[in-house]
C-alpha cells in the first residue's frame, strides 16, 4: 500500500456520517448501501409473502380481502425483483469488481452515488401506493392491461417508480461496463477476469438493452390511463397482447439479469472450496454470452396460451429449449470442478451446492414448460410459481447469501459464527423445499396462481407449503443476527486470504479491505489469480 493511499485512508476517517454515507463516492460504501437497502427490502417483500402464505394456509378467507391479496402478490413481485435481487447484485458488483480487477474505484463514482440514491426514493413512491385511495396496484408484477388500468391513481406512482428503478439500474450498468473495460490493472486480460466480473459485464449489456423497453411499456400504460391514448384498449383499436410482447421482451432478459451474476458467484465459490481450478473457464464465459443472446429470442414462451400462430409457438419452443444447452454446460462444469477435488464445506460452499441442486430443479421444470403442449396444462398454475421460485429463491437469493458468506470476512475483517451460519443454511435449505416443492403438485392438480382462496382438494399441500414458508421466513432472522454479529461484535479476525484456496486480487488485500484499495495498480502475478493461466 502506497503512502498516498494511506494518507487518503486516514483522511476518510474524519468524514462525518452524512458525508460518508449520503455523499459517498466510495465503491465499498456504496456497495454497503446497496446491500443494506436490499437486505431491508428482503424483509419488506418477505412480510408480504408471509401474509400471502398466511391467507393460503387454509381454504376460505381468514385474514385479508381478495383485492388486498392481489395488491400483496403484485408488490411482493416488484419489491423482490427490483428491490432485492437486482440491487444486491449491484451491491456485490460495487464491492467486488474494483477489487477483483485491481481498480481504485468504480469508473464513475458520482454516477454511482446517484444510481444508488435514486432507489430509496423509487421504493418510497412504490410502497406509498398502499396508503393511497384505491390501494396499491393489484394486477400482478406483470401489470397486464386492461386489468392494471382499472387500478386507482396509484398506478402513476408505480410507473414513475419503475422509471426510476430503470434509470438506477441503467446507470449502475453503464458504470460497471466502464469500470471493467477501462480500469483493469495491467495484465488483467479479459480472459483472466474472475467469472463474477464476466457475468456482470454481460448482464450490464442486458440491463441497458431491456430496461428502456420496460420503460416504454409502462409509459404507454401511463398514457392509456391518464392521457386518453389507446395503445392497449381493444375497443379503440389497441391491442392488449402487444403489451405482453413488449413486456416480455424486457421480462425474459430480466430473468437472466437476475441469474447471470449468480452464475458468476457460484463459479467463484465452487473452485475455492474444491481446491481445484474452475473446469472449462472459457466455456463458462461463452455459455453466459450464449444465454444472454438467446434470452432475447424466447420471450413468447411466457405467452403460449394467448393465441400465437402455430409457427410462433414452435419457434419459441425450440429457442427456449436451446437455452437448456449452455445452462446445462454450466451445471456440468460446476459438478466437474468438484469431481476429484478436495472438498470442504464452509458456509459459502454449502450455499453454492444448494444453489446447483435447486437451480437445476428449476431448470428441469423450465424444460418441461418449454414444451408447448405440456405448457398448456402448466400455464399460470402453481407449477409456474414453483418453477420461478426455485430459480429465484433457490437460485438467485441462495447465490447472494452464499456471496455474502464468502466475502463478508473480507468486508468486515471478522469471521462470522460457524454454528449460526450453518444453522441458517440447513434450516433454509430444508424449508425452501417444504415451501416450494409442493407447489409443483398444486399446479399439476390444476390450482391457478394469484388466487387467495381455493377448493378444499388443494388444502393439504397448501398447508405444507405455508408451514415451509413461515419456517423459511423465520430462518432469515438468523441471517440478520449472523451479519450484525459479524460486522459489529465478532472478535475473530479474518486473514487476508480468508479461505485457504481463495485466489484473485481481492484476497491479496488485507481484511477488512482498506477504504481505498489499489490506488496504484497492482502487479499481476498469474499464480495469484483464479484463472491466471488458462492454457492448461
Amino acid at each position, binding site marked *: 500500500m502506497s503512502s498516498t493511499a494511506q494518507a487518503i485512508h486516514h483522511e476518510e476517517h474524519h468524514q462525518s456520517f452524512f458525508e460518508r454515507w449520503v455523499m459517498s463516492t466510495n465503491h465499498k460504501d456504496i456497495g454497503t448501501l446497496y446491500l443494506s437497502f436490499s437486505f431491508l427490502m428482503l424483509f419488506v417483500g418477505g412480510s408480504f409473502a408471509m401474509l400471502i402464505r398466511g391467507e393460503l394456509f387454509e*381454504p376460505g*378467507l381468514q385474514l*385479508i*380481502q*381478495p383485492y388486498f391479496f*392481489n395488491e400483496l402478490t403484485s408488490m411482493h413481485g416488484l419489491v423482490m425483483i427490483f428491490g432485492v435481487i437486482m440491487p444486491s447484485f449491484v451491491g456485490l458488483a460495487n464491492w467486488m469488481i474494483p477489487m477483483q480487477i485491481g481498480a481504485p474505484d468504480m469508473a464513475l463514482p458520482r454516477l454511482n452515488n446517484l444510481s444508488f440514491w435514486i432507489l430509496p426514493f423509487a421504493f418510497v413512491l412504490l410502497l406509498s401506493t398502499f396508503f393511497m385511495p384505491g390501494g396499491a396496484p393489484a*394486477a400482478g408484477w406483470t401489470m*397486464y392491461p*386492461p*386489468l392494471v388500468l*382499472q387500478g386507482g391513481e396509484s398506478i402513476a406512482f408505480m410507473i414513475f417508480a419503475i422509471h426510476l428503478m430503470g434509470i438506477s439500474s441503467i446507470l449502475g450498468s453503464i458504470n460497471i461496463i466502464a469500470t471493467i473495460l477501462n480500469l483493469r490493472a495491467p495484465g488483467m486480460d479479459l480472459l483472466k477476469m474472475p467469472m463474477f466480473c464476466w457475468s456482470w459485464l454481460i448482464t450490464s449489456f442486458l440491463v441497458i438493452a431491456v430496461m428502456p423497453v420496460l420503460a416504454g411499456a409502462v409509459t404507454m400504460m401511463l398514457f392509456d390511463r391518464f392521457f386518453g391514448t389507446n395503445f392497449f384498449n*381493444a*375497443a379503440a383499436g*389497441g*391491442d*392488449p397482447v402487444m403489451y405482453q410482447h413488449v413486456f416480455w421482451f424486457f421480462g425474459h432478459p430480466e430473468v437472466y439479469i437476475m441469474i447471470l451474476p449468480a452464475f458468476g458467484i457460484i463459479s467463484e465459490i465452487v473452485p475455492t472450496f*474444491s*481446491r*481445484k481450478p*474452475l473446469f*472449462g*473457464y472459457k466455456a463458462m464465459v461463452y455459455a453466459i454470452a450464449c444465454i444472454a443472446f438467446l434470452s432475447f429470442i424466447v420471450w413468447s414462451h411466457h405467452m403460449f396460451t*394467448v393465441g400465437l400462430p*402455430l409457427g410462433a*409457438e414452435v419457434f419459441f*419452443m425450440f429457442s427456449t429449449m436451446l437455452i*437448456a*444447452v449452455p445452462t446445462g*454446460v454450466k451445471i*456440468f462444469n460446476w*459438478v*466437474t470442478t*468438484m469431481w*476429484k*477435488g*478436495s*472438498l*470442504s*464445506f464452509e458456509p459459502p460452499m454449502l450455499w453454492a*451446492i444448494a444453489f446447483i441442486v435447486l437451480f*437445476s430443479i428449476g431448470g*428441469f*421444470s423450465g*424444460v*418441461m414448460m418449454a414444451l*408447448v*403442449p*405440456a405448457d*398448456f396444462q402448466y400455464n*399460470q398454475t402453481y407449477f409456474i410459481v414453483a418453477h420461478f421460485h426455485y430459480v429465484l429463491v433457490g437460485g438467485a437469493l441462495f447465490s447472494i447469501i452464499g456471496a455474502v458468506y464468502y466475502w463478508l470476512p473480507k468486508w468486515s475483517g471478522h469471521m462470522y459464527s460457524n454454528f449460526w451460519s450453518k444453522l441458517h443454511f440447513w434450516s433454509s435449505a430444508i424449508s425452501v423445499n417444504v415451501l416450494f416443492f409442493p407447489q409443483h*403438485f398444486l399446479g399439476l*392438480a*390444476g390450482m391457478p396462481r394469484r*388466487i387467495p*382462496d381455493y*377448493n*378444499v*382438494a*388443494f388444502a*393439504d399441500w397448501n398447508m405444507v407449503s405455508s408451514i415451509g414458508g413461515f419456517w423459511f421466513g423465520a430462518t432469515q432472522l438468523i441471517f440478520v443476527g449472523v451479519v450484525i454479529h459479524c460486522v459489529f461484535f465478532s472478535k475473530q479476525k479474518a486473514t487476508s486470504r480468508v479461505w485457504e484456496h481463495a485466489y484473485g486480487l481481492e484476497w491479496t488485500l488485507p481484511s477488512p479491505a482498506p477504504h481505498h484499495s489499489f490506488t496504484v495498480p497492482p502487479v499481476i502475478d498469474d499464480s495469484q489469480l483464479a484463472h491466471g493461466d488458462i492454457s492448461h
Partner: protein
Amino acid sequence: MNVELGVSDYSDLSKGAITMSSSNCKRRITGAVAALGATLVSMAAAANPVPWQMNLDKGVTPISHQIWNLHMAALWVCVALGILVFGAMFISIVRFRRSKGAVAETWSHNTLLELGWTIVPVLILAGLATPATILTREMYNATDAQMTVKVTGYQWLWRYDYISYDGKPVTKVPTIYSRLAWDSNTARQLDSGVSPWSVVDKQTGFHDYLLDVTHPLVIPAGVKVRFLITADDVIHGWWVPDFAAKRDAIPGIMNDAWAKVDKPGLYRGQCYVLCGQDHSAMPIVVKVLPKDQFNAWLAEQQNAATLDKAARTAQAAPQKSAPAKG
C-alpha cells in the same frame, strides 16, 4: 344472439342476467334435471382434483392423453438427468472430501467431455421437441368441428353462446350465464363462518367449493366442439384441465380451442388469468351429455325459449296500454 367479436355493452349482460332469474331459468333447470336424472349417477367418474394430488390427470380427450404422455416423458428425462448430475455431486461430496485426505487434481479441461455434454443434450431435447411439435399442430387443428360455442369472460362470470351445431346455426337457445354457485359464494366471504368443507355436490359427494357454477355449459359427447374464446372487460383464461382445452380470453381477440369428449360427465376448471378481486371465484363447469340426451336438452331449451318469449310478449302488451302506477 350476439356472435360479433368485440366489446358488447353491459345492458346486454344485465338483460341476460335478469332473464336468467326469471321463470325461464327455473324451467330450464327442471327440464335438464328430468333429462339427466339417470346419467347423473354415472358421472361420479369424472376427474376432479383430489387431496394430496401430485400429478396431472390424464384427462378425457385424445389431446389430453398425449399431453400427459409428453409430460411424463419430459419428467422422466428430467429425473434421469437429475440422478446423473446430483449423483455425480453426491459422489464428489462423499469421496473427494479434504477431511478424508482427498488431494485435488489440477486438470480443468476435457474437450471430448465438453463436446459430449453439448451434443447429447441437443439430441435429448430434439427427442422431446419432435413429438411436442406434432402434438402442437394437432392442438391447433380446429377444422371439422361439428359444434361451435362462443365463450366470453366477464368480471366475474362466464357467458356461453351456442353458435352452430351439425352444420346449422343454433337459434333460440338462450345465452348461458355461468357464475359461481351461491353456496360457494356465501362460504367464500371473509369471516363468513361457513366452512369451505361444507360445500358439497349432493349427487357426487364432491367438495365443489369454488368449483361449482349456477349454470354449466352443456355439450354433447363424441362431438368435436370448437370454443371461440374472448372477453369483454379484462383478460381472463378459459381452461378445463381434463379437456386440455385452454386459451386466454382477451378483449378484442377471438381465440379458439377445441375438444372432443367421448365420456359423458361433469368437468371442472377455473379462470387462470388474474382478472381482479374475484379471480378465484369464476369457475368453469362443462356438462357432457350423450348425444341423444344433448339433442333432447337442446330441443327443450329452444322450446322453453319460444314459450318464454310468447309469455313475455303477452305480459308486456296489457302493460303498455295501462296507465303508469305510483
